[in-house]
């Protein structure tokens, strides 16, 4: 891999003499993420490759596609948002599949460390506001420069979730209740359709001791209701036990909304709540999907099986949202 990467890098990175320290960070058959260092006389550059290997061009239907991800990341970077610089988009001449190489940003993505480790003590109180401001920046990226993306509405999202849930053929009265609630509270089209990051939560945020360093993973980016991103970051599943701090387990909705306003946009708390319920149900349906894939194989892993048993967590969270017991 290092030789192949070295050849690729030499073609566009001036002075690059090779690549060291290549390590696969994640990946299934169709998409991989690699970390490596580009060796240069003036000093090494930390880099990340995200690619679909040759032969795996098509992405799943919800995915924006790697080219779109690269464009969005670069747009965000150019707009001054915390986002890695894209150094190279793979071309057919690279014979390396499709994807892109970006600058590696050091920091932490693991929620439990961010929420508990002493080194992030100063970051935690400022993160909710920072995320609000950055979300406003993402939603404000100019429509004319965006790549082609799928357009989603609340109505279509409810229908997608319902279809997926029904395909499992396993009755869940709490999910039914949530689907009814969503249908009854569908807020309709937003005042302004914007870019939506689509997966704005722990795991996709690089955090340093001073705060947010980068937003990653634009795979689920689409056009839609900007309040979706604010609702998703409030889903209880991303609070990792800190349930009284709705924004990622580190902050309040008020701080998130204040940051959003500082970024030049106004949050709509009712719509945010709607998307929080939607997000909670979505994560629950995703957990059920893991169980299905565990059963169908080929990934017959304990982890997948046990994630299936986490869908009940979203049921209690849905009840806390929709039928609170007044405690």
């Amino acid at each position, binding site marked *: 891999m290092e030789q192949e990467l070295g050849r690729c890098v030499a073609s566009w990175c001036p002075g690059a003499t090779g690549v060291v320290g290549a390590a696969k960070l994640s990946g299934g058959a169709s998409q991989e993420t690699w970390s490596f260092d580009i060796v240069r006389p003036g000093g090494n550059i930390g880099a990340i490759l995200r690619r679909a290997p040759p032969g795996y061009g098509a992405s799943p239907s919800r995915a924006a596609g790697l080219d779109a991800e690269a464009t969005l990341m670069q747009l965000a970077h150019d707009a001054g948002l915390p986002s890695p610089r894209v150094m190279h988009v793979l071309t057919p001449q690279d014979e390396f599949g499709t994807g892109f190489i970006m600058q590696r940003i050091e920091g932490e993505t693991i929620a439990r460390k961010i929420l508990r480790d002493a080194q992030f003590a100063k970051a935690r109180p400022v993160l909710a506001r920072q995320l609000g401001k950055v979300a406003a920046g993402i939603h404000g990226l100019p429509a004319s420069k965006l790549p082609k993306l799928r357009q989603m509405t609340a109505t279509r999202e409810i229908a997608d979730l319902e279809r997926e849930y029904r395909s499992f053929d396993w009755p*869940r009265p709490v999910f039914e209740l949530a689907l009814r609630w969503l249908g009854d509270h569908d807020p309709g089209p937003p005042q302004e359709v914007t870019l939506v990051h689509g997966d704005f939560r722990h795991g996709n945020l690089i955090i340093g001791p001073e705060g947010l360093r980068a937003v990653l993973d634009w795979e689920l980016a689409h056009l839609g209701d900007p309040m979706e991103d604010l609702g998703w970051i409030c889903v209880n599943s991303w609070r990792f036990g800190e349930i009284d701090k709705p924004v990622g387990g580190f902050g309040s909705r008020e701080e998130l909304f204040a940051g959003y306003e500082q970024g030049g946009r106004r949050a709509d708390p009712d719509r945010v709540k709607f998307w929080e319920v939607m997000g909670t149900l979505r994560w629950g349906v995703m957990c059920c999907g893991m169980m299905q894939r565990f059963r169908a194989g080929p990934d017959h892993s304990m982890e997948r099986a046990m994630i299936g048993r986490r869908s009940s967590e979203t049921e209690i969270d849905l*009840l806390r949202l929709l039928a609170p017991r007044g405690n």
Partner: protein
Amino acid sequence: MQDEPTPTELIKAVADFLRNEITPVIKGHNAFKLRVGINALDLVTRQLALAPDGDAAEATRLSQLLGLQGPLGELNRALADRIAKGEMDLQTPGLSDHLWQTTMDKLAVDQPNYASYKRELESKGG
């Protein structure tokens, strides 16, 4: 009739061995997988202990709520169906209590350390 030890005793013995003897000598990704495996065994132990009473109580509540008799799976399907059609909702007497009790019983097996569950348990004494 099968002999002793019971499934619960066997699983618990294996889980304790993995937890106490193997965990200290495993590192890296396999340590993570080992933890997931031990969690799975603990979950099975809780299910074997709690599910018979929980399922029976759930079936009794469902029969009352729906005015139907039948296996638990069929009753749940009937309830899901009525909620989907809007024939039952949170205004239906007993529905909210039933969903809460059923969900609390699931969490007691699946994730008794889940923060939302612990909060609800504290505030309602179960």
